[in-house]
């Protein structure tokens, strides 16, 4: 196994281990929210699409880091975007939590017949009522930009791989491949969380549902605060 192959394997394993620790804590609320939002529909395809979107974004970022050969240059150019995405993710989880609890003043926003009139509520209504799960792909593409320590670490390795490449194209593919390996490694944990949180007996227990919605509201507030402070 060459040193580059070993690096891909290292980041595949890193993605797997980080997935069951770091990602569950930081991205878990979003994944749980998406599952609960599906309200009994099949969750596997939407979650696979969401995660595919996330991995595609990682791949593009890895490719850019590989071309630039500099992590700091890439990071400084996307920091504002990441800040916005963090706030957006917070608002997403917060609204989903509020809607689950039935505690939003303009009625339920998840397409139960009482959709609100704001742009945001219409967007959430569309997300929930979407017949095709393809809507989860762009969501994954966007949320793949969430600021995350282990993703940054993998991007540093991508930039270093690019520095050692003989051409920009080789740097792009080296960085991209490394981030794909990392992203694929994180899939099992997040798909598993998505699958488990959609199990019928959870949704059929009003108390668990209410507690979950309260925790989602807290998690959403946390994301918004962190996004503003970032």
């Amino acid at each position, binding site marked *: 196994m060459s040193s580059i192959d070993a690096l891909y394997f*290292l*980041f595949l394993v*890193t993605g797997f*281990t*980080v997935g069951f*620790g*770091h990602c*569950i*804590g*930081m*991205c*878990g*609320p979003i*994944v*749980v929210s998406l599952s609960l939002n599906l309200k009994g529909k099949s969750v596997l395809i939407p979650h696979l699409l969401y995660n595919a979107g996330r991995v595609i974004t990682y791949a593009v970022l890895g490719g850019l880091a590989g071309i630039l050969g*500099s*992590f*700091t240059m890439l*990071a*400084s150019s996307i920091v504002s975007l990441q800040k916005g995405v*963090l706030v957006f993710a917070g608002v997403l989880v917060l609204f989903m939590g509020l809607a689950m609890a039935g505690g939003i003043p303009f009625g339920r926003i998840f397409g139960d017949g009482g959709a609100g009139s704001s742009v945001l509520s219409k967007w959430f209504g569309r997300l929930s009522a979407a017949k095709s799960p393809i809507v989860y792909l762009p969501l994954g593409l966007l949320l793949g930009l*969430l*600021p*995350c*320590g*282990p993703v*940054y*670490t*993998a991007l*540093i*390795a991508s930039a270093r791989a690019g520095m050692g490449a003989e051409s920009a194209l080789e740097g792009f593919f080296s960085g991209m491949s490394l981030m794909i390996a*990392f992203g694929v490694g994180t899939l099992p944990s997040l798909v*598993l*969380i998505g699958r*488990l*949180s959609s*199990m019928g*007996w*959870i949704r059929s227990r009003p108390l*668990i549902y209410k*507690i*979950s919605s309260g*925790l*989602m509201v*807290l*998690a959403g*507030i*946390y*994301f918004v*605060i*962190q996004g503003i*402070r*970032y």
Partner: protein
Amino acid sequence: MKNQIYDVLRTALENPMDQGVKNMLKGFWISVEKSLILVIVCLPILMNPVALWDAIAAGPTPGDVVNCDIQRGPCTQDLAGMTVTLDILPRPVRAMKDLEFRVTVSGGNPVKAAYIDLGMPGMDMGPNRVELRPVKDNVYEGEGIIVRCPSGRRTWKATVTLPESGKVEFLFDVIY
């Protein structure tokens, strides 16, 4: 409780086809399964309020005591009869910036293939290694980056490894 479980298992072994025992075992397993799933599902949404409290408190994780004020100057620790000094430049030491790591070893033999692993105490941030190269007698340097954790925690750990002698840990705060 333990005796009840043993009784159920013994009965099941003696008469595996008994429907009542089968149902009891099934019920027991479903309860265990539900408990596990509840923990797994609630964990992510529970961990964020915990992280929120961490961010509000803005202090180091309990048990991980900062032992190096890297913002003021180099830090020194003893290792197997040697003195290991870590310096990070430029100061102030900020996350998401290109940094130069300098390790000075005194009182020992020349070091081969020394390196620094950067991480956050109590949180897996992935492998972030700074390879060090000798620049002059007993002085080793390498380039690296400390990344920013969105949780707001600022305490980082640099584990300096001298392969033939051991390792020392420097815990310090960075600026975001």
